[in-house]
């Protein structure tokens, strides 16, 4: 594969397989992500890219192969799962904010209940992250009162409040109106430049080109090609990659 520039691996997948009934969604997926690396996962719909990143924090269970995060194996041990989830933030396509809680409560919930952070400290942290995603003034509103772009930025801040060392993004801009995509991408670029380890499933090729260290192209449950974006865009090795990029970029 490509060089890991000598950094320690933070996520290691090897020989991961998963089936939905008879449907083989992940086929022998192996991938190593170094600390601080930004990975963009792309591929046609149904290629298993969302399933792949959802396996990393056990929202989906893989059936064969091993996944290690920070060296901790993801297995049936609940303590392992909890330890990994505490350290892996996730942002969803449909935001999944808690509608019955204010923005501030959305942000402080996990630090207070999972990390036992004192409430005042959690609120200070929450306001700091709202500042970082550029919506400090929305703290006391309910999610339903915000625009899609604002909601997604709150969701990013909510994940950051747990101070994770890895962030997973599952098509974070796919549910947004076009004029709101940029405000979310800006926050993500900002995050990437801050050195966060990121795995993004996205179709935003401009974003990929700008921040990704490596791009992973998936099709039919397999990793077809892994390469830095410049290389992948300029010189795709596989015919499937070429066809997909042609569809995404070719207009």
């Amino acid at each position, binding site marked *: 594969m490509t060089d890991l520039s000598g950094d320690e691996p933070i996520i290691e997948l090897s020989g991961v397989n998963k089936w939905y009934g008879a449907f083989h969604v992940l086929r022998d997926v192996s991938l190593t992500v170094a600390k601080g690396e930004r990975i963009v996962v792309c591929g046609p719909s149904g290629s298993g890219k969302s399933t792949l990143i959802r396996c990393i924090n056990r*929202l989906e269970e893989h059936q064969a192969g091993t996944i290690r995060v920070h060296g901790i194996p993801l297995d049936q041990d609940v303590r392992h799962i909890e330890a990994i989830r505490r350290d892996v933030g996730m942002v*969803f396509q449909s935001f*999944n904010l808690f*509608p*019955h809680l204010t923005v501030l409560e959305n942000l402080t919930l996990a630090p207070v*209940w999972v990390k036992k952070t004192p409430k005042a400290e959690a609120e200070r942290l929450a306001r700091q992250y709202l500042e970082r995603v550029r919506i400090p003034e929305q703290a006391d509103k309910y999610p339903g009162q915000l625009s899609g772009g604002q909601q997604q930025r709150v969701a990013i801040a909510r994940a950051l409040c*747990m101070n994770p060392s890895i962030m997973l993004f599952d098509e974070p801009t796919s549910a947004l109106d076009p004029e709101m995509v940029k405000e979310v991408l800006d926050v993500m670029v900002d995050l990437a430049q801050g050195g966060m380890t990121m795995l993004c499933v996205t179709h935003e090729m401009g974003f990929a080109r700008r921040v990704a260290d490596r791009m992973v192209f998936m099709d039919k449950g397999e990793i077809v090609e892994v390469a830095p974006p410049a290389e992948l865009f300029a010189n795709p090795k596989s015919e499937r990659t070429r066809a997909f990029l042609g569809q995404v970029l070719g207009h």
Partner: protein
Amino acid sequence: MSDGAFGLSPGEPPATRPPPAIAAPGVVGWLRANLFRTWYDTLLTLAVLYVLWLVVPDVVRWALGDAVWSGEAAACRAAGGACWAFVAEKWRFILFGTFPADQHWRPTLAMLLTMGVLLASADRRFWGPRLLVLWAVGLGAAWLLMAGGLFGLSPVPTELWGGLPLTLGLSVVGLAVAFPLGVLLALGRTSALPVLRVLSTAYIELIRGVPLVSVLFMASVMIPLFLPTGVSIDKLLRAQIGLILFAAAYLAEVVRGGLQAIPKGQVEAASALGLGYWQRQRLIILPQALSLVIPPLVNTFIGFFKDTSLVIIIGLLDLLSTAKAALTDPAWRGFYKEAYLFVGVIYFLFCYALSRYSRYLETSLSKGRRR
């Protein structure tokens, strides 16, 4: 919509129009708008007025004009109107059953305590762990007042309890225990663990498949059979257990409806943040699910409150039974209408209060939370 939003040319500001003026204001305007707007509205209005004209004067004459407010049954029979003298004579028996008459302050105080606890629980500002303490203390004190045997209160066996305190006690304690049980059953039925799911489903379907009367009979007859000889459970407690088992199954299904309405993404987001199963349920899923099902939940509560009147079949004297019992007094035989109206009004007041409260809760919980 000739000048509406569809046909706007660039540069032309959208035309704003004032809302259409309301027709003639005042009483006449209201009458015209609501009762006589079209010819069939008018026809319906006139028909309803005619029916009211036929019925209302007779009812008023019976309930007020020809009514007898005090005195003996003979006076009532002579007058032909409502015999409120019957209620005046029997209200204490109907309200308190066979509880010793000189001790009626005790059930009165017990009911006031219970209602105080309910009122405090109704206020969202008091929601929290302290409320559990209040319930334990309040209902414990109410129980002590009823049962006696401590602090110089003469002991009153539960066989003598009856009337409104019994109805209220069975309902409040019943729902207070059945509700958490129902939530657990609903969580069990939606659980990922097959054993829990099968057991919860089996329980719910079994209980829902039989009438309350038979559950009460079972509780009354079967529970003693399972106990070792010499040990016996109070009849009232057996009825209470039967009612709880029954209500829990129904509440579980209502709660399950709410649980299933919560998008899967909520659980996923909570899981991804590291919240454990119980934290997810308590902080994320249940608050949303329960506020969604307030109307059917209150519906079940109200139904349960009235269903407690079925305990009469195992010989307990609830509010409805004491009214029936009052009618067996040879001197006052036959005043069914008055007895049932009196009891009906009491039932109605409680149910209506509950229904109003649910409306308040629904609006106050949905404030600012629309998706």
